[in-house]
């Protein structure tokens, strides 16, 4: 760990010397992206957040980003490099950056790190994530109402808790309004691969799905649905409004801007602390994109009501009674899921077909 000290002292030196020129006037904020900023989904929304930071603070901040950074040693190097270049705050926006973030943070104790969707924290590492499952609840409701074939397709990325939560939430609310609904899930093992996503969408449509939900970031499934006709989709991570009003009838939008602005401000004020943030609709981290007129008015109204209930905290998507897939009880009547269970969720709820792959 001598090297760490070496780096640290180098950074300190920089902070004192070179930093004097910069750091005092400008707060430098770095962003590490897993995809291209033009992906129209996940990375795009993070970059919107970055722009919001620039807008909010103007000349007081300088933001830098590196896109297409592979998880693993490459990301560690990019983070180190940002830290060396004098970044005060670094957002690492992919789950796979977790260990590298922790490693780099250990070497640069004076630099603040924010890691998205992870579970490891340190004194200078915060984690943040969004309660996408709240948005999934709305999607599930609309899907359950709108499907005629009673088959809902679901393009899933990786079998991790976040994705499983989404499936459970969507199914729960779809089956509530349509007991006959059936979910067909395809695992594509990628967050962003237009070709694979399109193939998956086509396969689902061929199997009779007339609603396709996606937990991947490209717009390829939207295009596939538009081509097939008569298939309902929802935007993911980003609004994907260009596919509205149909097939895209609504969307889940990750709105990182408020959080990024707040955290940057905290660094500037010197009030930054390591926290674990998991926000949803109430704080605006999760937004529901416009529900188009393709959705029947009554359904739209119900959906809006549900959103409102979640915003006020009156409704929790996982409210009992809910059984696990094997029939065992999970939540009793009126009981709501605790964050710990949700964070590590690795089981389907009752009614979902199939097994979680591993």
């Amino acid at each position, binding site marked *: 760990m001598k090297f760490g000290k070496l780096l640290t002292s180098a950074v300190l030196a920089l902070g004192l010397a070179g930093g004097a020129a910069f750091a005092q006037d400008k707060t430098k904020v770095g962003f590490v992206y897993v995809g291209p900023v033009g992906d129209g989904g996940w990375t795009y929304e993070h970059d919107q957040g970055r722009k919001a930071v620039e807008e909010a603070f103007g000349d007081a901040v300088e933001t830098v*980003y590196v896109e297409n950074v592979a998880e*693993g*040693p490459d990301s*560690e190097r990019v983070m180190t490099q940002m830290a060396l270049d004098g970044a005060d705050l670094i957002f690492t926006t992919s789950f*796979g950056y977790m260990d590298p973030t922790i490693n780099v943070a250990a070497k640069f104790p004076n630099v603040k790190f924010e890691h998205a969707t992870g579970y490891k924290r340190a004194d200078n590492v915060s984690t943040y994530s969004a309660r996408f499952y709240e948005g999934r609840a709305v999607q599930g409701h609309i899907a359950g109402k709108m499907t005629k074939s009673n088959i809902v397709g679901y393009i899933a990325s990786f*079998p991790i808790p976040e994705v499983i939560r989404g499936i459970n939430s969507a199914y729960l609310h779809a089956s509530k309004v349509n007991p006959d609904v059936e979910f067909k899930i395809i695992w594509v093992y990628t967050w962003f691969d237009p070709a694979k996503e399109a193939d998956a969408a086509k396969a689902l449509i061929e199997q009779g799905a007339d609603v396709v939900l996606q937990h991947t970031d490209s717009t390829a499934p939207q295009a596939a649905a538009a081509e097939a006709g008569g298939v309902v989709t929802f935007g993911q991570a980003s609004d994907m409004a260009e596919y509205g009003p149909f097939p895209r009838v609504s969307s889940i939008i990750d709105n990182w801007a408020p959080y990024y602005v707040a955290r940057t401000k905290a660094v500037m004020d010197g009030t930054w602390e390591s926290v674990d943030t998991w926000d949803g609709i109430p704080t605006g981290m999760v937004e529901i994109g416009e529900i188009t007129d393709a959705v029947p008015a009554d359904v739209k109204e119900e959906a809006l009501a549900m959103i409102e209930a979640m915003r006020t905290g009156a409704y929790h998507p996982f409210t009992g009674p809910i059984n696990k897939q094997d029939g065992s009880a999970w939540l009793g009547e009126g009981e709501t899921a605790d964050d710990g269970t949700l*964070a590590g969720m*690795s089981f389907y709820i009752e009614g979902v077909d199939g097994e979680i*792959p*591993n």
Partner: protein
Amino acid sequence: MIRLEKRPQVSAFMSYATPVLAVLATFAAGGVLFYLLGKDPVQSIITIFYDPIFGEFSFYYRPQLLIKGAPLILIAIGLAMGFKAGIWNIGAEGQYIVGAICGAAAGLAFYPMEAVWIFPLMIAAGAFGGWLWAMIPAFLKVRFGTNEILVSLMLVYVAEQLLASMSLGLLKNPEGFGFPGSRNLQQYASAHNAEIVAGTGMHWGVVAALIAVIFAYVLLTRHRLGFAIRVTGEAPRAAHFAGVNAARLTFFCLGMSGLLAGLAGMFEVSGPAGQISIDFNVGYGFTAIIVAFLGRLHPIGIVLAGLLMALTYIGGDIAQSQLQLPAAAIQVFQGMLLFFLLAFDFFTNYRFRFGFRRAV
């Protein structure tokens, strides 16, 4: 009238001069590209090529060159041996993955036991895994005459599925809250491929790469097997006439490249990457193909080419963050470098002739 003419002999001068010319041409064309993007061309090129080696933070980047370059070199060395013999292993990425899986599995099997023999065992397992994966196309080629290019490439996708399955199942970290990915080998001392001297980037993979380079150099220039490889690539019938057993050579070349790719994967997973995860592989196996050709399939050339590739990656990332050059521009720039190398390469074998050919 200008025309191209094949040189009677490969030009020795040109084979040394082309890399330099190519780099200069890349500077020129890349400079234009960056200028058109509204960036300072000189600054951009300095950032990419100069800063990582001599810049303010070179104490950090130089070791990174080794870390990034070592797997490329290790894999490319193996590939080059096959390529020289006309045996096209395109699936080093798959062998890299399988080597990593086997290596990591061998280590994790004994977690949390600490013992000195664990790391050597992992090395053996990694090498074996890569070798085994490469034996599949080798066997199919020898036995059934299948095309090793297709088979080895397809096996990359199989390996990726295997990797996903391992990250989510067998090797999943039991303490990982259900998230995919194995335990982090960096936190398992016996299995950690740590830097031999901290801060130098010298981990065992770098050592292995150096050994592989020397081994390949000796093999290709001094050993009968290397000679057989070269003759087979140059003139298969002459090789047959010289007594080379083509089937055995196929097994050797594919096996050796698989073995080295497997080693690269094992050193990567136990060192810089730390864990088996779904996105563990980042394309080293494919980039190494470029490195192999860039280095003219020569061991020393491959070392230089591997370091050069590493440099453009590292410098490219720096340029992205410091100058906000888009990632795509960096990729175009890297593409230019390859393009110019290959284009100038042409002139080691051909030359321009001016004037008309005498009609005879």
